[in-house]
């Protein structure tokens, strides 16, 4: 079980969190004209990297904040976590 540092609460066990996918995905603007291909890329297509990955986690059984985690998908090493309006330090 991973140990994740919530930027609001501190270190907590993984079972307090839920995973929220790739943190680098940007939702298209409301009302934006967008091709089906671009829309499908937003809705469906995700990279599946081996190694460093920026991802979202949600502290569902805690402060209920979404935040960013930089994690190695192969070793599970967590390099950094930060609030949504912050950037990783490492």
């Amino acid at each position, binding site marked *: 079980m991973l*140990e994740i540092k919530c930027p609001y609460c501190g270190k907590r*066990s993984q079972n307090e969190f839920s995973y929220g996918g790739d943190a680098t995905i940007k*939702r298209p603007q409301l009302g934006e004209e967008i091709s089906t291909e671009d829309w499908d890329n937003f*809705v*469906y297509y995700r990279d599946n990297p081996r190694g460093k990955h920026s991802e979202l986690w*949600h502290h569902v059984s805690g402060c209920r904040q*979404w935040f960013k985690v930089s994690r190695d998908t192969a*070793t*599970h090493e967590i390099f950094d976590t930060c609030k949504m309006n912050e950037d990783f330090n490492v």
Partner: protein
Amino acid sequence: MSNSFRTTNSTGLINKDKKINFTFNGTIYHGYEGDTLASALIANGVHLVGRSFKYHRPRGFLGVGVEEPNAMVQLHDGNKSEPNIIATEVELVEGLKAKSQNCWPSVQFDIGEINNVLNRFFPAGFYYKTFMWPKSFWMKIYEPFIRKAAGMGKAPLLPDPDRYEHNYEHCDVLVVGSGPSGLASALAAAKNGARVILAEDKPNFGGSLLTDEVTIGNMSGKEWASDTISQLKSMPNVILKKRSQVFGYYDHNMTVMIERVSDHIENPSKYTPRQRLHYIRAGEVIVSTGSIERPISFGNNDRPGIVLASAAKEYMKVYETLVGKKPIIFTNNDTAYSTALEFIKNDIEPIIVDTRDSSNGELVKEVQQKGISIKFNSGIADTKGHLKINSAIIGKLDSSKESFISEETVECDCICMSGGWTPTVHLSSQAGNKLKFNDDIDAFVPDKKRQKETAIGAANGSFTLNQSLAEGFQVGFDLSNKFTDQNNPTNSPNSNEPSYEKHEKLWCMPLPSGKKPKRFIDFQNDVAVSDVELAIREGFRSIEHVKRYTTLGMAGDQGKTSNLNGLQYVSKIEKKIVPEVGHTTFRPPYTPVTIGAIVGREVGNHYLPTRKSPIHTWHEENNAVFVAAGLWQRPRYYPRGSEDMNSAVNREAANVRKNVGICDVTTLGKIDIKGPDAPEFLNRVYTNAWLKLPVGKARYGVMLREDGMVFDDGTTSRLSENHFHMTTTTAQAANVLSHLEYYLQVVWPDLDVNVLSTTEQWSGIAVAGPKSRDLLSKLFPDVDMSNEGLPFMGLVDSSIDGIKARIYRISFSGELAYEVNVESNYGLYTWKKIMEVGQSFDIQPYGTEALSTLRIEMGHVAGAELDGRTIPFDVGLNSMVSQKKDFIGKRSLSKDAFTESDRQTIVGLVPLDKKTKIPEGSHIIEDNSAVAPIPKLGHVSSSCWSVEYNNPFSIAIIKDGKNKIGKNLYAVSPLKDISIPVEVVSSHYVDPEGSRVRS
């Protein structure tokens, strides 16, 4: 022969003043406090414990602890029965019952032993080769036969009566294993101020110090261990745990440890758990798990009475028990000589067989000084004795050590063998450590760590006491310094131990002349040298493949004594060095763990949390049958007298249509939404328009996922300009909240809106039916309940007996209906009040079944239709989709597949005979007589008995639904093997104009 194999000294750890009676295979024996089942049996001269897995060969004890591959027993009986327990790990307790397994009719005479005679038909991989043809034999003949023959003990058929607990611990330094290095590191870390947990698998701390003749400082090793434990015990920052096995090392330094809490206690308190599972998140883990002695492969090396030399020594020194009185010590190294010396101390003269040409080790010299001659350059070729060893054939090795030049038969009653030592690297490897091969000790040791884990002492390949202690004190101090600022190192005391000469790289003896006895490598799985040879001959090269083909290193002991000997043999045949062959993966658990311990207290009703509405007790008192809705317990129906479910549901639903019904809808998700951007937010979340919803009005809303599928629906009300009350379905309540939080925090953080779950703050009571207005008028006399005063989708605040109440005029049943919301604590009171006043209106409670009936008749969609595969168009919600604004998921709706006109859409179905109920999940097909594969038009999502028309009615989602209305099709259920002719009708079966809700 009661305890005739006890030593006469009393320097061990058993208490000969306290007798303990136990039963093995129906015979009553006794042992002493401090014994294990293994030591007590050996003391009684019992070596034959069970039969081997494949050949049903008689087997006894090989080891003395977790490494034991053979001595598995079935413990206890009835609901406490437990299979495959290794006798070396069972502490003796009064009345303990154990029996042999994998034998019939008895362990002395086992019919399955015919497999041993027929062993040439059971080579490695025989499963893959033998039962291949004819194909039809597999299911009916081979498979049942193999099942019957396979397996060891018998799983109990009754529920486990014992209690198991889980515990979560945090510490700076976890030390696994309490041998010299473990004790040293725990002491150093604790003295430096770190929070330390020291875990020991055995009932006594000390590890090898309990059996080795060494001195540390001015104390014996055993005294030093006991002194160190006393020091640690007195420190508030230390937790000491014995009988505790750390069996798993997971991510982020999470380790899991199983503690045997009460198995060794005669009458444990009812509230004492049997075992406790500890999840330990450690800052640093010190792996001081020691090493395990290796056996040597030679002819018939599996007979009862053939043990590891270290085990024989521990039985003597700790348990005051002799594994035999005519021992042969067979070794390729010096350490076995300490076992020889222990025998000599007990006035028994062992025969010593050493594969090496000579040794000048101190222990060897000591043995020689006692006048014992050593057969150097020799090996054991074969053994004899069916149920217990009675003689060995000792051979003189030739110079290549590939064959014997002469052989002699020697009587014996035990063989104590030693093939050197294997560091116990399991935990390091589980932690992701890349092991390296150490040629000096011929074993793998931890190397490149991935987690915060450090192996020390024998587990790190440091076999001398000086090294172990030095590493322990240094590492304990260094690691603890990360957590404290005391900077207080502890010096390693001087220690004394004998010097050892090098072992010989020889683990497999040549065959005796003219014979081919089995030379076992893996005792638990009956894998012999010949099986490994066969696997390689047949082309298996990867060690992982050799493992799976031969089953070497599998099963309960996971190859603790066999893995390296197997590797070494493969490397010999393949003429590769061991590191090139590699090693198989070490996975948790290190030792078998009872399922009960893994489950802990999460059994029965504690498997999941149970959510109950504040009105729950009333439902119970009124005979409700409950159904789980997620975690909630909801009344399904309220049978009267001998009523069955169908009659009760029809009565409840019909009463809503005719009079008035009351339903507990507390479980609906409720979300409080506040902020200046709340209307704009709802406008983006829902498919319909929200900006112009007036204060004091509710509106039905549908929300989608980004992929266009309907996510949830519900009514949301505007309480004031910037304050909304959202309701969700019971099932999606938590997901909708996360969804809203995601968009507010991640996607549109610029929106000034706050959301908060208020599901448990409100109790909701639906009052539905033509008489509901009259009832509510009586309950809330100061509210104008007329159609003008409180119109459909209106809401009003009022009170009942001084309790604040909010009344919504909303309807799921399709009838004139209201929903009364009060603060949760007043839910029960309010419900009772409504029931009381409602008596004169023929009020009846209705459960989820009637609720479903009512909504299905009306064609209202619910979870069965909103199954994550339907867009608004499919379920008749297209009018809810605004063309003027953008919202979550809108772009998906214009994708090609989503705009096809013949998509599967919602319809109603009525069976032509008006009698046969259509099973939910039935497939809809056009031609009942067509040959498979028959094109499927869709499926039945919901079914009910229409109380309005008194015939079955279903909702289905079928291809080009709208244009199928009026047609006859078939609903088929292959599961129930029925085919029902049906007519397609509108899904709005009752009151399609929706006039009742507005009446």
